[in-house]
C-alpha cells in the first residue's frame, strides 16, 4: 500500500485555529480549508525562515503610517 501523503496541517489543527479565531467553522468547510492551508503553509514557513536570517535583520515591514491632512498642528 502506498504511503499517505504527509500533511503539515490536519483537520484537528484547522478546528483548533478556528476556535482561537472565534470562528464557527462548519464541518463541511474543514477539509477544504485544511487542503488550502496544507498547500500554503510550507512555503509561508520557508519565507519565515528566509526573512529570519541575519542578512535581513534591518528590513522593516511594508506597513505605512499615513497622516490625514487635518492632523497638521496649526497651533
Amino acid at each position, binding site marked *: 500500500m502506498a504511503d499517505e501523503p504527509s500533511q503539515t496541517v490536519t483537520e484537528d489543527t*484547522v478546528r483548533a*485555529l*478556528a476556535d482561537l*479565531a*472565534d*470562528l*464557527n*467553522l*462548519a464541518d463541511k*468547510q474543514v477539509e*477544504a*480549508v485544511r487542503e*488550502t*492551508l496544507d*498547500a*500554503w503553509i510550507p*512555503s*509561508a*514557513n*520557508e*519565507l*519565515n525562515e*528566509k*526573512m*529570519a536570517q541575519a542578512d*535581513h535583520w534591518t*528590513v*522593516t*515591514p*511594508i*506597513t*505605512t503610517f*499615513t*497622516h*490625514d*491632512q487635518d492632523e497638521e498642528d496649526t497651533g
Partner: protein
Amino acid sequence: MSTEDGLRELTLSESARQIADRELSPVELVDACLERIDQVDDTVMAFITVYADQAREVARASEQLVAAGHRLGPLHGVPLALKDNIGLEGLRTTAGSKVLDDWIPDGDATVAAKLKGAGAIMLGKTNMHEFAWGGTSDNPHHGTVRNPWNTDRFPAGSSGGSGVAVAARCCQGALGTDTGGSVRLPSAVNGIVGLRPTIGRVSNHGVIPLAWSMDTVGPMTRTVEDNARMLNVVAGHDPLDNGSADVVVADYTAELDRGVDGIRIGVVPDYFFHHLQPPVRDGVQSALRTLEGIGAKVVDVRMEHIHGNISAQLTVESAEPSAYHQRWLRERPDDYGDDVRVLLEVGEMLLATHYIQAQRYRHLLRAEFLDAFKDVDVFICPTLPFTATGVGDMTVVIEDDREEDMLSAIMQFTGVPSLTGLPSLNVPCGFDDHGLPVGMQIIGRPFAEATLYRVGAAFQAETDYHRRAPQL
C-alpha cells in the same frame, strides 16, 4: 460591416476626437454599445447592471452640449464601464457578492466622479470574481463570465467582466481593480491593454477593498493610447484616500510617439522565462525581438530574492481580506460563494508572523527592483504563464502534464508588481494555436507610467494584435 459595427470598432481616442469635432454622435455611439451588450451579454455575462436609459439620457445631453460648443472634458461622450466594486452614487454596487446585493452608495468613488467630470458616459457595472478574491470571474451570484475569443475558456479575473466588455466591443474602455493581478490578467487573456498604476497613483476612495496594502484601480482599453487617456483623467492625489500619493501627474500621452531607441529592457531568464506554456514564451520572446529591432536593448538581470513572491502574495492577499470580512463571515457565511468563503476562512488561520514576514519580504523585493532600475528602464515578462484555460477549471497545466493550483499559477508573474507597488502594463503580444491571446507585462519604476506607455505604444505601432477582434 454595419454602421453599428463600424462605430464599435472606433477606439476610445478616435471616438473622443470625432465627438469633439462633431463628426460622431454620442447618442449613436451609446446605442451601438447597448446593442452590442444586448447581442452578446447573455453569452459572456460581462455585466451585472446596465444603465441603458440613463446612458441614453446622458448621451443626449452630451450631444446637446457639443452642439452648443461645450465639452466637459477629454472623454466627452465616450461610453465606459466600471467594475462593480467601484461605487456610483445612487446605483447598486454589489462587488459581485450576495452580501452587498442591495447596497447603494451615497457618493461616487473618486475615479467615477473624475470620469463623469471628464464627460464619460457610464454604461453599466461589470461582473467580477466575488469581492475580487479570485482569478476566474466564475461568479455564483451573477453568472460565469466567459472569454469572447472562445466562450468555453475563462476570462481570468478578478476584473473579468471589464476585460470581456472591452474586448467584445461593448464599451470603449473600463475600469478594473488590481490587487494581485486583477487588471492585468483579464487584459492578457482577453487581448486588451490593462494598467496596474503605481500604488497611490489612483485613488481608492469609494472602492470596496480586497487587500488594502496592494489594491489599486486601473484602466482597461483596446490600445495603449486609450489607456493613457483614461489614466490622465483618473490619476492624481485624493485627500479622501490616505494612501493616495501627492505626486505630480504627467501627461501620459506626451511620449507615446517617442519610440524605444535606447530603452534598456531587463529580463529575468531564470524566473520570468522559466515555467511557461510554449506559445506564451514564443509570444513574449518575439515581442522582445520586435522591440530590439526598433532600438531597445535587452539586458539579462539576476534577482536573488524573486523566489518567495507567490507565498508572500498569497499570505498578504489572504490575511487582509479576512480582516475586512471578519464580521460578515461570522454573521452570514452562507452568502459567500464556496471558493471565496474558504479563502476568507484560510486567511483567519495564517499566523501574524507569516503576515509580518511577508510584509518585510515586500521591502526586500522592492529594494532589489529599485536597485536593478539603475541599469534598466523597464522589465518585460509574460503577464501569466498560460493562455485562457477552461471555464470552471480549478487547476491548470503549464508543462509536463502536471496539474497546478490555479490561484498560485495565475499570479506567478503579476504578484511581483503588486508586492512592490511598481506600475505594470499588459500589452497583447500574440496568439496561441487556438487563437487565444498572449500578453506581456511591462514593469517600470515608481510613477513611470509614461515610460510603460511609451514602450507599449512603440510595440503597437509595429504590430496589429490590438486591432484583432474576437468573432463572437
